[in-house]
């Protein structure tokens, strides 16, 4: 790997220098991952705080939703895009996260938010290890089928244990808003959106760091050729289970953020359609890049909103309006695969490349 890196840097040095902007970009890329990712996250967090300071409460919630969807999709990216395991059950981990959060708030009201989040991550990682270990020998369609069963079967548990999990109505709770010291400065919804984004960005930093390191290289080797990776000494089963664990942890954390933002956890929000929409958003955003998670999350939240507005302005019936987003996602999924397999991120980076060359 060392030799590869040297090779990269020499290739970079032979390229002609193009102005100060290009030089800055070079220097940025030369920073170690542990410095670069937190800095980028800090910048993104500042941008979100600035954005929510000018938007209303409804928009704040939507911005918060983009945050947790981004985290969920990034976790799926690690599993599908990098380690090549197709999971259709990511919604199940969001379900676990949301219910863990709801139960903690209801039964341990004294716990602070960050502790709840940490416990949620631990619980969903444990669930991820269980599922990952059970399915580590499966691949391709076998794994997809097994995880699909998980996504369909798990929410039914709420009906099985109605006293604990609230049956089909789910659990409702109220969360504490901004601390008293900040009461006049930020509104409740701004505080919530900021908290969700901070959590999501911290999660993303972990995911991006993992992906840039040895584990990420192992996962990509596994994805590209399992037998060759095994011959090269990569522990196939363990790497797969770890990928499942990390992805489950971020899915659970995203579910916890959702529960925190909405104040409810209901089984009807964790349908198979959610798992499939997450996959659709991932493919739409672009497989194989963390930026894809951001674009996918934006699409997931705003396509639904625009669909409703469009249906309203065209005065389409409720049957059409309710099903518009899912049809739209389905069509996008098919079109992206048929026409533009790199997704939105691929499109944007290609455009950026054209602009750079044109200069």
């Amino acid at each position, binding site marked *: 790997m060392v030799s590869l890196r040297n090779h990269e840097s020499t290739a970079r040095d032979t390229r002609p220098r193009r102005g100060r902007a290009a030089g800055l970009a070079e220097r940025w890329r030369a920073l170690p991952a542990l410095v670069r990712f937190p800095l980028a996250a800090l910048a993104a967090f500042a941008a979100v705080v600035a954005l929510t300071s000018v938007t209303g409460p409804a928009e704040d919630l939507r911005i918060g939703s983009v945050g947790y969807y981004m985290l969920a999709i990034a976790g799926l990216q690690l599993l599908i895009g990098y380690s090549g395991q197709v999971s259709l059950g990511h919604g199940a981990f969001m379900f676990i996260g949301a219910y863990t959060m709801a139960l903690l708030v209801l039964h341990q009201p004294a716990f602070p938010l960050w502790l709840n989040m940490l416990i949620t991550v631990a619980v969903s990682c444990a669930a991820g290890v269980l599922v990952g270990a059970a399915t580590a020998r499966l691949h391709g369609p*076998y794994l997809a089928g097994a995880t699909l069963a998980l996504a369909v079967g798990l929410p039914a548990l709420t009906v099985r244990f109605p006293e604990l999990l609230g049956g089909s109505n789910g659990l409702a709770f109220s969360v504490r808003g901004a601390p008293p010291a900040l009461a006049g400065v930020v509104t409740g919804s701004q505080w919530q959106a900021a908290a969700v984004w901070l959590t999501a960005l911290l999660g993303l930093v972990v995911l991006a760091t993992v992906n840039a390191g040895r584990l990420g290289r192992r996962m990509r080797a596994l994805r590209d050729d399992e037998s060759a990776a095994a011959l090269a000494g990569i522990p196939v089963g363990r790497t797969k289970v770890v990928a499942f664990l990390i992805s489950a942890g971020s899915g659970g954390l995203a579910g916890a953020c959702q529960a925190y933002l909405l104040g409810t956890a209901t089984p009807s929000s964790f349908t198979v359609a959610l798992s499939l929409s997450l996959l659709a958003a991932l493919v739409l955003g672009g497989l194989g890049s963390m930026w894809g998670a951001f674009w996918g999350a934006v699409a997931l939240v705003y396509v639904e909103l625009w669909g409703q507005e469009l249906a309203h302005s065209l005065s389409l019936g409720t049957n059409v309006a309710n099903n518009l987003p899912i049809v739209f996602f389905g069509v996008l999924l098919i079109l992206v695969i048929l026409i533009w397999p790199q997704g939105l991120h691929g499109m944007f980076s290609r455009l950026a490349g054209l602009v750079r060359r044109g200069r």
Partner: protein
Amino acid sequence: MNHFIDLTLSGLSSGAVYAALALSLVIIYQATRVVNFAQPALALISVYIAYTVSQATGSYWLGFGAALVTGLVLGAATERLLIRPVHGRSPLNAIIITLGLLLVLQGLAGMVWSNEPHSFSYPLDYRGRFSASDWFALGSVAAAALLLFALYRFTPLGLRMRAAAFHPEAARLSGVRVGLMLTTGWAIASLIGALAGMLAAPPFIFPNVLDAVFVYAIAAAVVGGLENPFGALVGGVLIGLCLSYVSGYAGPELTTLAALAILVLVLSVRPGGLFSRPTARKV
């Protein structure tokens, strides 16, 4: 004991439905190496067409025929328009395309026929311990399986289809139109899927009615080994019986998780399913 016999009988008839849907998955997997996640949606549209035709004409059996024809046409169209373009690319592409089609068709069904459930009649009398409808389910699936076996084993078309699935290059060299054979395979599979949908949907039909059935069918197909039609039939009946016992003795909410448990259990012992032969994977 009485309860046990009741559960066994109901498990047999629902198992027949899972077996039919599993069979349709296996036929497609054998031919094109794709798990058709859009199968429940293709069946769903077929059942809705049957519903509309039955409402318009007042005859259940006209609707039944319409469903089978719809299944045939939809299957062929899916292969031709959506699967053919990604043939030979990464299997993830085909999986995502079929998932996209699933979303589109379920959404369209909701748009046209609304998300509210409509009542949908059984083919025959459904009352009693092992009713006429249960017999019909068992009989029609058995008949479909036998016809399929006869088609593959004894007709020139079946021989060509097997050749196209087994060795496309060699088949093409000996004059088999491989593409046409793949389309035929999808059409037949989707027809059997429509039959399963007609058997599984009553008493109500709504866009998500086949989701759970599909999960059981995938479990059945995987348990039997995705490449073995006989395995799909055995897997379907096996899953039907097991789930019937789980539902009767432990509670109906646990059936899906039980299906997952069976899946994991079987696959951890035999990763390729019960009826798979060990194969060498190429590096």
